[in-house]
């Protein structure tokens, strides 16, 4: 389907634009949260954890606002086809964004509560994984703003790299646990295992968003399996 022209009733376009603006703002705030998260993992900064906690309720507000906007839009406009998909996927995307925000908060608190600083090589890999998630977020927002199904597909396909990275760090942490068994280290490493699993799950939610963008633009639900890089852990 080619690029849409405007509605005869221009306020219809305004409603859609307003919903899209809210989703984009919410996504941008999530992007900001992951930038802060990177700093927290890197430096352990307590004040940055405070920043993350302060931002988190704003995401809930966005989620509620988008729900209100979409319900009003559907009630008053009776949208069809691509317009209806715009509304419905805005709801789903905001749920994924809200979840991404939750993950960010959880990881921040977990990092803050670590019993000891992780070994440099593991920390660097976790940072690298976080950067990958940040890149995916940036690209998925770009796909949303430009309504670009190909970019959405690229994001979907790129998640496998995060899965692979997760697997690699997982193995590294398990090796670390085995190499110097002591209680404190094991506790800290267990938290790191949860941390990387949560980052990996964040990647999955970004993939959800990419699929929702693809659906909005094309009307087709992707049925091919997601490319996988993850094993069973």
């Amino acid at each position, binding site marked *: *389907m*080619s690029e*849409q*022209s*405007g*509605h*005869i*009733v221009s306020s*219809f376009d305004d409603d859609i634009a307003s919903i899209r603006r809210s989703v984009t703002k919410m996504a941008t705030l999530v992007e900001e949260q992951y930038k802060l998260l990177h700093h927290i993992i890197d430096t352990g900064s307590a004040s940055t954890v405070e920043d993350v906690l302060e931002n988190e309720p704003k995401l809930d507000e966005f989620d509620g606002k988008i729900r209100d906007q979409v319900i009003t839009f559907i009630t008053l406009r*009776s*949208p*069809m*086809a*691509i*317009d*209806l998909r715009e509304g419905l996927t805005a709801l789903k995307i905001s749920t994924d964004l809200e979840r991404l925000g939750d993950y960010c908060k959880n990881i921040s608190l977990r990092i803050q509560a670590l019993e000891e600083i992780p070994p440099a090589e593991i920390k660097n890999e976790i940072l690298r994984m976080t950067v990958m998630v940040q890149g995916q977020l940036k690209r998925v927002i770009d796909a949303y703003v430009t309504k670009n199904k190909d970019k959405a597909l690229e994001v979907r396909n790129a998640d496998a790299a995060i899965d692979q990275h997760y697997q690699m760090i997982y193995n590294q942490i398990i090796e670390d646990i085995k190499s110097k068994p002591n209680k404190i280290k094991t506790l800290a490493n267990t938290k790191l295992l949860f941390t990387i699993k949560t980052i990996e799950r964040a990647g999955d939610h970004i993939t959800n968003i990419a699929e929702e963008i693809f659906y909005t633009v094309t*009307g*087709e639900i992707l049925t091919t399996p997601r490319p996988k890089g993850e094993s069973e852990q």
Partner: protein
Amino acid sequence: MSESLKIAVKNLNVFYGKKQALFDINLNIFSNEVTSLIGPSGCGKSTLIKCFNRMNDLVEICKYDGEVLIDGKNINDTSTDPVSLRTRVGMVFQKPNPFPKSVYDNIAYGPKLHGMYKNKDDLDEIVVSSLQKAGLFNEVKDRLFEPGTGLSGGQQQRLCIARALAVNPEIILMDEPCSALDPIATAKIEELIEELKEKYTIVIVTHSMQQAARVSNRTAYMHMGELVETGLTKNIFSNPEHAKTQDYITGRIG
């Protein structure tokens, strides 16, 4: 959903004088389904349904080529009697148009004209059952011999549907049957359409996207005399194939 073909339109072109109104229309309409025709004013929807009961015969300057087959038989063959065709293919119009006669006589008119009853009891039975099928009997049973034009708009429209049913049609054509009705009367007609499709094949022209979505199994979108797209209603309104269809149903072109 049955899949038995009731009306087949093949390469139909219709002209009013020099002006071509329909361009190479190909459309299948299936038994016991409701098919909606949608599209902007002047796109040829009404012209098309008038081809299903040869109403265009009455328009002198109207010429056509191509075929309209009902149950596989070309209705434009010289062997087809247009009057008996119109008993098989009933029509309900935008504005309720009861005859200036009693409720009873409105319904009895067709059966009388075609000699479709044996005796008075038989005719009474046809009147009552037609009114029942149109969901109107309970509302008018005490007013059968009062003028049909005294009923409310929604009742008049159901009276016209009952009148069409009285001659035992197979197909019912409805040309914007609810455009003059309030939402309650509209809902009653839509409920009736749902019931009628059990026995009849229904083709409805409507300007209401929501109505087409609510009542029909299949939808055909027409634009400037051409059939742009036809398909299952749920597909047409959720993910049409053609940009023109999407532009129309989402309110992007007039």
